């Protein structure tokens, strides 16, 4: 199968709009304050009707799942991709004998940004490792696009809190890694990595080693590395947790900008409620007993709150009030 030069690598800034903009309310509708979707999650409504945009085949057909396993190498341009849908069904996860998470039921809609908040020890990172395929479930199932998650895949890229970069590889080497692993030719690799390095604002730093970068710069590299392979889901484990407030704000702006151009589903773990409200379409509150609440964020990632009555029928003041109420609600659930 012949593809365009950049056909199987992510190209920043050419996305044809966010899938979630029109798809969110149709597929992933959960009313604000909806209790957790029951254990018998309607997985069939996702896999049964969803058509794989790249192959034109239903998502759960052998061709589509095989494609997903190989990291979508035969895919078309970025705009043709869709985010990955996850269904968690009576999931129990943990290390050793004792599960950290029990009886988790949750749907993640394709293309949405789902933020998981919880106090430390609530199992946020454990949940993410489960989604990544790094941690096999004790019980229950994790279904990604109709196929049970059996191990890590290039389609589910992960961004770690800190030190996730390979210290012996330069910035370019790290960003090229996912492409090198799937055998993308050297020149194509360099071009795609270069574009992403520029996109995250690190042009000129290609030959630096991670130890020669600040914490914020390292997280930019991780972001570029996660997205260069055009994954269909990006799992972010407190990626800005180790950064100072100012750097963190810059990184959040960068992330919002980058996410606008990629159709990937994002699961973002944080303990920072404001970060959750800033980035998410929906917020999942995780407590010691499991999922406490799944809440919709009004006007997600919009700037209506700051600049006044621009977005929709609601005024900026209304939105601000909604957000304050949501914030209070999350803090109460935590």
């Amino acid at each position: 199968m012949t593809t365009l030069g950049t056909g199987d690598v992510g190209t920043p800034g050419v996305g044809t709009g966010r899938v979630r903009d029109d798809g969110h309310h149709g597929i992933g509708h959960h009313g604000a304050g909806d209790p957790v979707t029951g254990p018998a999650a309607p997985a069939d409504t996702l896999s049964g009707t969803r058509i794989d945009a790249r192959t034109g085949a239903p998502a759960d057909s052998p061709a589509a799942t095989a494609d997903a396993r190989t990291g979508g190498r035969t895919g078309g341009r970025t705009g043709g991709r869709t985010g990955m849908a996850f269904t968690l069904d009576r999931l129990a996860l943990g290390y050793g004998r004792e599960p950290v998470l029990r009886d988790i039921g949750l749907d993640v809609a394709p293309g949405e940004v789902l933020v998981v908040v919880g106090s430390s020890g609530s199992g946020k990172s454990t949940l993410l490792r489960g989604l990544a395929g790094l941690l096999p479930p004790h019980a229950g199932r994790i279904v990604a696009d109709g196929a049970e998650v059996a191990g890590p895949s290039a389609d589910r890229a992960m961004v770690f809190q800190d030190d996730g970069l390979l210290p012996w590889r330069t910035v370019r080497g790290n960003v090229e890694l996912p492409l090198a692993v799937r055998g993308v030719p050297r020149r194509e690799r360099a071009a795609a990595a270069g574009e992403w390095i520029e996109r995250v604002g690190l042009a000129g730093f290609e030959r630096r080693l991670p130890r020669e970068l600040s914490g914020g710069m390292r997280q930019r590299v991780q972001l570029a590395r996660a997205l260069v392979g055009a994954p269909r889901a990006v799992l972010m484990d407190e990626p800005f947790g180790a950064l100072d407030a100012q750097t963190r704000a810059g990184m959040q702006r960068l992330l919002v900008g980058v996410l606008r151009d990629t159709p990937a589903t994002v699961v973002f773990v944080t303990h920072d409620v404001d970060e959750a409200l800033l980035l998410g379409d929906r917020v999942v509150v995780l407590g010691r007993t499991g999922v406490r609440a799944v809440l919709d964020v009004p006007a997600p990632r919009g700037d209506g709150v700051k600049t006044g009555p621009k977005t929709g029928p609601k005024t900026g003041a209304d939105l601000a009030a909604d957000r304050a109420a949501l914030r209070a609600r999350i803090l109460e659930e935590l």
Partner: protein
Amino acid sequence: MTSVIRATGTTSGDTGTTSGASGDVASGVTAAAPMRAAADGERRAARTTGGGPGRSSWVIRAASLLTVLGVWQVLTATDARIGLRFDRLPSPAEVAAELTRQLGTGVYYLDLAQSVIRILSGFALAALLGVACGVLVARSRRFADVLLPPIEVVRPIPAIAMVPIAILLFPTDEQGIVFITFAAAFFPIMVSTRHAVRALPTLWEDAVRTLGGRRRHVLANVVLPGALPGIFGGLSVGMGVAWICVISAEMISGELGVGYRTWRAYTVVDYPGVIVGMATIGVLGWLTSAAVERLGRRLTRWLPRAEGSGA
């Protein structure tokens, strides 16, 4: 970046490295226009690289070596008998004369080449098998179960104690000596590799796996590079023991080599010759260790402390 490495190795390392790094920064900031402000702020936080040993450091090193020679010369010239009897020890001048004589003969170079060939072949074998074995044992429970018991039993046996067996097993002395050298270097390399691999954080492996990497990618991109600092620790120790054992083996068997020549000099009571042999071993050992050290430094310059520490 190679120029930077080279610069750090020389005495003028400081200036070379710093100017290179600031050049990078300047081009980076102008190219990243949209992110300029943020990148600029982070640039200040980014560490710049330090230099290698300075000129004064080399002067001190040379002076240290010359002082030892000077003390030796004084002790032998004055026939000092201070518990130790320096009156019978050849003086540096006598040794230098003997060395000059030997440098004019072909045998000296033949011995030298023979020892170097033995050490390099034995050490290369040990490095290859030691690293492979260490990685296998650290990464696979099954390999550990199969390989570790015999290895742990053989490991405490000094390689030199294997000489009789080596003579018995190998058709030629040459092979026996290479085997002894190999046996000496193998264990430190294997053990260091094993520990280095086991000590690797799982985070890097997780990262590569979530980017689509399979077992072989993890091995090539995480395990081997990540274990390199530990592996080079083992290689340094291994090179040291390899010299000890190649010289000892040459003294016991063999018809050429620095060890053989040194022992021959002793049997004919040629003490300047003995010391020439010893000095030759010392210099060769130092050169090979420095080569290993240097290669290790070059391959692990990503370590936080790689630059700025001594050469």
